[in-house]
């Protein structure tokens, strides 16, 4: 009985955390637009604009579909991103992250992308196909430096579990260790690509390929993609914070610590997101091959330097 109750409480906590995280993501979309507007010296939309947009899209009267494969985009995108968030420790709360590890998270992040790509393919719009091509090439590009950085972390902490990595960083964030400062810088640029912010907003370039994969999406499908976008903001920034900034864990034990950790986590992901937005507003768009070269030439070399350094540290 007690176990059932505690289990239910756990499920409830997980549900609440996930919902809150998604809400934060949607809020961040508005905040992001506001920040960009302020950089542009504009007023910008209200910070709750994300909710309005999503509500409008989902409440559209007619929704079109191109068949059941097209609908997979809707199902996969939300499912995948929420699932990913469940496997990331948020502010020291482990959720399900002890049941999987960083590789799982890395691959879980592919589920929504794959669903998205399936829907885009099924829509039959050539722009969508080109957009998906760009997105996949972007993925191939930014994964290399990111993965190298992640491997460096895993070797240093001798674990693949994100929860373990977060726990090991208690008191000393990875970013404070010299080689990981390089890794973090590299991973931050990879984050720019993951969030599809400029200069890496190549896949959805609206002026070139009519917003790419989303060209044929409207109504509830587009709404679910917006939710997915919101989720990616939280997921990727949290991944970054968990890997390099100790997951925002500053206190241990008790409800108070949880609240404090949550707040620190929020601040940290906000800062990471803001940094990404500031880079976004300052750069034009790369071409896809330029992005590929950037990640595989300069970023990868930096990441490898960090990795070799870490390897040397671990060996000696």
């Amino acid at each position, binding site marked *: 009985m007690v176990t059932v109750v505690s289990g239910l409480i756990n499920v409830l906590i997980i549900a609440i955390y996930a919902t809150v995280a998604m809400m934060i993501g949607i809020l961040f979309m508005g905040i992001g637009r506001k920040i960009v507007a302020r950089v542009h010296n504009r007023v910008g*939309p209200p910070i709750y604009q994300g909710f309005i947009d999503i*509500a409008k899209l989902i409440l559209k009267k007619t929704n079109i579909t191109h068949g059941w494969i097209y609908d997979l985009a809707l199902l996969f995108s939300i499912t995948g991103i929420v699932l990913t968030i469940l496997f990331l420790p948020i502010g020291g709360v482990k959720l399900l992250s002890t049941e999987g590890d960083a590789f799982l998270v890395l691959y879980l992040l592919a589920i929504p992308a794959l669903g998205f790509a399936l829907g885009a393919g099924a829509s039959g719009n050539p722009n969508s196909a080109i957009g998906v091509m760009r997105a996949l090439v972007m993925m191939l590009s930014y994964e290399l430096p990111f993965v190298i950085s992640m491997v460096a972390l895993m070797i240093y902490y001798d674990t693949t579990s994100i929860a373990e990595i977060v726990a090991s960083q208690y008191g000393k964030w990875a970013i404070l260790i010299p080689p990981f400062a390089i890794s973090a810088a590299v991973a931050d640029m990879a984050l720019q690509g993951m969030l599809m912010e400029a200069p890496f907003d190549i896949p959805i370039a609206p002026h070139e390929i009519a917003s790419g994969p*989303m060209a044929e999406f409207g109504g509830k499908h587009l709404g679910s993609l917006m939710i997915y976008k919101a989720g990616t903001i939280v997921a990727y920034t949290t991944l970054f914070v968990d890997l390099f900034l100790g997951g925002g864990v500053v206190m241990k034990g008790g409800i108070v610590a949880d609240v404090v950790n949550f707040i620190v986590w929020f601040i940290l992901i906000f800062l990471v997101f803001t940094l990404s937005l500031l880079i976004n507003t300052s750069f034009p768009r790369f071409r896809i091959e330029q992005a590929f070269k950037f990640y595989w030439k300069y970023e990868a070399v930096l990441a490898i330097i960090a990795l070799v350094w870490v390897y040397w540290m671990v060996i000696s």
Partner: protein
Amino acid sequence: MKYEEWSKISRIASKKSLWILHFCTGCGAIEMPPVMTSRFDMERFGMAPMATPRQADVLLITGYLTVKTLKRVIQVYEQMQDPKYVVAFGSCPINGGMYWDSYNTINQLDKYLPVDLYLAGCMPRPEGIINAMMELMEMIEKGEARGWEKYRKNYEKYKKNQEMAFKFGKVEE
């Protein structure tokens, strides 16, 4: 769940988040950018330019239409998802403007598509555009912008007109 139950919320959401598809036939290229950028900043009302009709709520038709472009406009309009609104810019969609006697110009857009809002002037200034948009928002909130319902209801009539236009160049009345 029925649409009507949500229509109030939906209208409010629509009003605060108007996504625009700009069907540009040449006019408005000077006036639209200031509306989007920092001087007038239409984003503060939740408006944003969109790339495809699937995503957009408002079809902005700037300038005159010919038989050739009308086909595309209709295609684009039909691809948009309800609720959708048409805003016609300048004098040309109203009565043909300075091209009224051309053999090929569509003089009255309203015969082929339900226009929710006309914005007179050749061209209207950015302030005018903002004003028109505010007007449209009010209409949406009040439930007056029902062009899409009208189109659906009188679909036969519109189709007939469109076909006449494609056949003879313009509808003779």
